């Protein structure tokens, strides 16, 4: 079933950095995938978005964590002319949500991650770690909203976003947004945008490392660790190898 809604515009907060021409090609969007983790259960999931170049990949996920549930999500968003993933996560009493995500954008790609994490009840924990690399004329964006409901005391929410730009034509957008209606909460967020360390590149070259290889090593190091704790060994290898192939092409 299709979602009957008007096309978004730049005025819609979560679409402000998107590629709206590409969005129009994919409209109307398909229904979101839904996860409902039962009370006390723990689950994990991995999303690898590597659509063919030129494709439009827009995927929405609605995740509900019942009391005491935990959910670990690993995400690699790197394919298509537009690759957009949205996560709408609701945490009930004492639930825990862990997100580790890499956004890799090259050429003229627009790669986006939009999260809305709602702490609906007390004592829930959310951790979002997002790393983005953008080269060419690409755009990588992370829009992360955290909402803490009025009685969701002792909420512990953290977001970390770091982006690396490989050239002057590349863009990274970070838009953390906190909406807090409780008074006893811990909400942390950090965002930084940098570029490849020139001193490190020269140091590596001085030891004989080929410049393209040196770049790849530094980029790999930048996203290193994101996929380390993936439960499924072969899935982890698939994520790492897919990311590496893209990084090599970007270097």
């Amino acid at each position, binding site marked *: 079933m299709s979602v009957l809604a008007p096309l978004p515009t730049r005025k819609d907060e979560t679409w402000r950095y998107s590629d709206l021409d590409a969005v129009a090609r994919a409209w109307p969007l398909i229904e979101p995938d839904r996860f409902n983790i039962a009370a006390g259960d723990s689950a994990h999931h991995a999303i690898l978005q590597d659509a063919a170049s030129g494709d439009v990949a827009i995927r929405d996920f609605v995740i509900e964590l019942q009391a005491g549930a935990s959910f670990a999500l690993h995400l690699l968003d790197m394919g298509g002319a537009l690759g957009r993933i949205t996560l709408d996560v609701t945490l009930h009493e004492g639930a825990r949500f862990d997100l580790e995500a890499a956004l890799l954008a090259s050429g003229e790609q627009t790669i986006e991650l939009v999260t809305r994490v709602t702490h609906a009840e007390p004592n829930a924990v959310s951790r979002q770690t997002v790393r983005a690399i953008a080269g060419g004329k690409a755009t990588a964006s992370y829009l992360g909203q955290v909402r803490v409901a009025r009685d969701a005391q002792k909420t512990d929410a953290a977001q970390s976003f770091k982006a690396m730009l490989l050239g002057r034509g590349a863009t990274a957008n970070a838009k953390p947004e906190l909406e807090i209606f409780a008074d006893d909460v811990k909400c942390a967020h950090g965002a930084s945008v940098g570029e490849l360390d020139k001193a490190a590149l*020269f140091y590596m070259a*001085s*030891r*004989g*490392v*080929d410049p393209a290889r040196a770049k790849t*090593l530094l980029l790999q*190091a930048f996203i*290193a660790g994101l996929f380390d704790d993936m439960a499924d060994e072969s899935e982890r290898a698939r994520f790492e190898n897919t990311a590496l192939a893209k990084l090599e092409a970007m270097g």
Partner: protein
Amino acid sequence: MKMLNISNLHAEVDGKPILKGLSLTLNAGEVHAIMGPNGAGKSTLAYTLGGRPGYEVKGGTVTFTPPRHAGLDPASRFSSGAAEGSGTPAQGRGDEEINLFALAPHERAAAGLFLGFQYPVEIPGVSNVQFLREALNSQRKARGEEPLSAADFLRLAREKAGLLGLDMEMLKRPVNVGFSGGEKKRAEMVQMAILNPRLAILDETDSGLDIDALKTVGAGINAIMRAPDKAVLLITHYQRLLDYVQPDFVHILADGRIVKSGGPELAQALEREGYAEVIAA
């Protein structure tokens, strides 16, 4: 045999002339020390020879004539044919004069140049072992040699770490991250031992070392680089490293030029009398 021939070198940093007609020749088998006051251009010389971006050559020539690099593993010596006829541009044909400035920094390394950094760079997320194996195998590839396997590389790394008194565990950690000043300098020398260059330019390798580390590093330099087919250019502020690595020649660099050259006695005179006195004499 001339290994490095620097002739009338002029170089600028940020549009400011630093090297102003520097000339110097190193022969194979020799250790030279360059001493000089702060701001004389010592580090600029090292970076210019290494090819660091931002260090602009404005005039003069530098030729590098590395004795043929035999590789580390006898089995991987140049095989017949390719080795005799033509080498890769980075490798030269052995005993052949290379215009150093025609090579990119990584090609200079493959040709046999090693630059020891005054401030070794930290690279979070990349282990020493991974970094050095990449470096060594990149160099070997450029020279037309077979890559070293992981096991062979680890054996080599363990041996060289032992030579410099560096715990092998340190080599499994990210490059220079969390290393003390002394550990960084030891790690530089382990890198040099593994890469086995023909010419080492060591920029203030003695800074940040306590006396025990100085002894170890000095002995390391001698063990790795004192050979008939190798040469060393030690850039230093103080005499103290020269107690452990005896130079054959000492040069004083002031205001971008070599203003005085002599034997080891020149370093001692500097220590006694200071730069101003010795340069004026």
